[in-house]
C-alpha cells in the first residue's frame, strides 16, 4: 500500500485534543440533591446495564478516535498496488457533428450520445482515468485525463452540438495518441456512424462503439459551391449536388433562396442511391 499524501498522517495528532476533551468531559457536573432515593430506584433497576453504561463512555471515545483515523486515512489517499496495476485509461470520443442533430431518437442523437457518455463516466473505477474529445469539424480535447467524475460531467455538458462535418477518424486517431501504449487503454466512441469508411473503425482494437440513432431515409445536399459567373459580370454560378441516401426513390424540391427571396426551385426525382449534380 502507498499513500499519495503521507503528510496527512500528521493530522493524527488531533487524537491528543480529543482524548484531552474526553477526560475533561468525564469530570461530571456535581449536583447536590436532598435525597437520592428516587434516583436509586430508577438506576438500580438498570443494574444489569451498568457494565454497558461504563463501557459506553469508552466506546464513545473509541468511536471518535476511529472516525479520526478513517478521516486521516482518507486524506492520505491510500492506494493498493493492485488498484494501480488494474487502472484503466479511457478516451471518450463524442461526435457532435451536424448529423447528430437528427431527431430520429428522442430528443436528438447528440443528447442520446451525451447520456451514453454519462453512463460511461458513471462506470469508471476509482483509479481509472478518462479524457473527452469532441469530434466535430476539428477534433478538440475538451477534458484532459482526470479521475474526477464531476469535472468529466461538467466538460461533457460543455460540448455544443454543431452543424459541422464529422471528423471521427481524426478524433479516434487523436484519442489513440493520447492513450499511447497504455496496457489498459481504450477508446469509447459515441457516434451515429454517419461518416465515411465506417468499417475501418469497427475493426480497430480497444474501440468500444456506442451507436446512437438508427438508420433512416435521408436526402441531402452533399456538395454546394457558389462563384462569380464567367460569362455574366453581375451573375453567379452555383454547383449543387443532392444525394438520395435512402433505399427508395424519392420526389423532392431543391429551393434556393437569397436573403429570403426565392432564386430557383428545382423539382427532383431521385432513384435509390442516385446523386444529382447541376
Amino acid at each position, binding site marked *: 500500500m502507498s499513500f499519495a499524501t503521507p503528510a496527512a498522517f500528521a493530522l493524527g495528532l488531533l487524537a491528543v485534543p480529543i482524548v484531552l476533551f474526553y477526560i475533561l*468531559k*468525564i469530570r*461530571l*457536573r*456535581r*449536583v*447536590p*440533591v*436532598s*435525597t*437520592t*432515593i*428516587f*434516583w*436509586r*430506584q*430508577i*438506576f438500580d433497576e438498570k443494574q444489569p446495564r451498568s457494565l454497558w*453504561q461504563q463501557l459506553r463512555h469508552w466506546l464513545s471515545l473509541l468511536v471518535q478516535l476511529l472516525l479520526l483515523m478513517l478521516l486521516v486515512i482518507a486524506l492520505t489517499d491510500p492506494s493498493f498496488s493492485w488498484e494501480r496495476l488494474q487502472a484503466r485509461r479511457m478516451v471518450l470520443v463524442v461526435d457532435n457533428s451536424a448529423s447528430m442533430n437528427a431527431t430520429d431518437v428522442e430528443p436528438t442523437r447528440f443528447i442520446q450520445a451525451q447520456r451514453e457518455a454519462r453512463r460511461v463516466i458513471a462506470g469508471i473505477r476509482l483509479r481509472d482515468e478518462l479524457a473527452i474529445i469532441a469530434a466535430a469539424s476539428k477534433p478538440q480535447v475538451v477534458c484532459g485525463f482526470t479521475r474526477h467524475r464531476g469535472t468529466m460531467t461538467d466538460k461533457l455538458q460543455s460540448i455544443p452540438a454543431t452543424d459541422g462535418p464529422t471528423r471521427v477518424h481524426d478524433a479516434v486517431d487523436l484519442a489513440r495518441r493520447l492513450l499511447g501504449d497504455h496496457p489498459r487503454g481504450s477508446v469509447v466512441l459515441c457516434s451515429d456512424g454517419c461518416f465515411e469508411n465506417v468499417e475501418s473503425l469497427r475493426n480497430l482494437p480497444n474501440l468500444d462503439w456506442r451507436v446512437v440513432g438508427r438508420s433512416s431515409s435521408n436526402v441531402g445536399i452533399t456538395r454546394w459551391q457558389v462563384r462569380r459567373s464567367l460569362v455574366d459580370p453581375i451573375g453567379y454560378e452555383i454547383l449543387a449536388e443532392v444525394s438520395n441516401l435512402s433505399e427508395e426513390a424519392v420526389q423532392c424540391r431543391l429551393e434556393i433562396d437569397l436573403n429570403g427571396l426565392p432564386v430557383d426551385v428545382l423539382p427532383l426525382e431521385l432513384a435509390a442511391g442516385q446523386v444529382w449534380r447541376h
Partner: protein
Amino acid sequence: MVLAYADRILDEFPLTRGKARILSLLRFLEELPIQGTDTDLARTVQGFVHRNQRRGLAVVVSDLFDPRGVSAGLDLLRHHRYPPHVIQLHDPREADPDLLGDVELYDVENESVSQVTISEKNLRTYRQLFAEHQASVAEYCVRYNLSCTQTNNKVKFDDLVLRMMRVAGTVR
C-alpha cells in the same frame, strides 16, 4: 417539646408552655444546624416513645424522604398514642428537577455520590416516583384519619398556617 431529628434525635427543646418562651423556641429553631445522615423516622420515634412522659399530639415536620419508608415511624407514634399530624415539605426542584445528561448526584444527607446519565425518560420516571411517594403519605394519613399537610417551601408560613386552620375547620 421540639425534637430535631435525622437518623436519630439530634437536638431537643424541652417541654415548655407559655407565650414567653416563644423567643427561646424561635432561637432554638434558628440555631439548629444541618446535621445527621439519612432520615430514619422509625429509629427516631423509637427513642421518643419509650420515654416516661405524657401522651399527646405529635406534629411531624419533614420531607419524609426516608429510605426505609415512613409508615413504620408513623405506626409507632399511633400505637403509642401520639396521633401524628404530618406536615410534609418539599422544594419545587425536588418535584421537578432540572437535570439532564451526565451528572454526579451528591446526596447532601449521607454524602454519597452517584454518577448517572439522566435522560428524558429517567426524568419522567422520577416525577412519577416522586408523585407516588407524596400520594402514599397522603393515602396513609387518610387511611388512619390523620391530619396531613403537603406543601412546598415557597408557600409563606402565614398562608400555610391559615390553610391548615381552614382544613381543620378552625377558621373559615
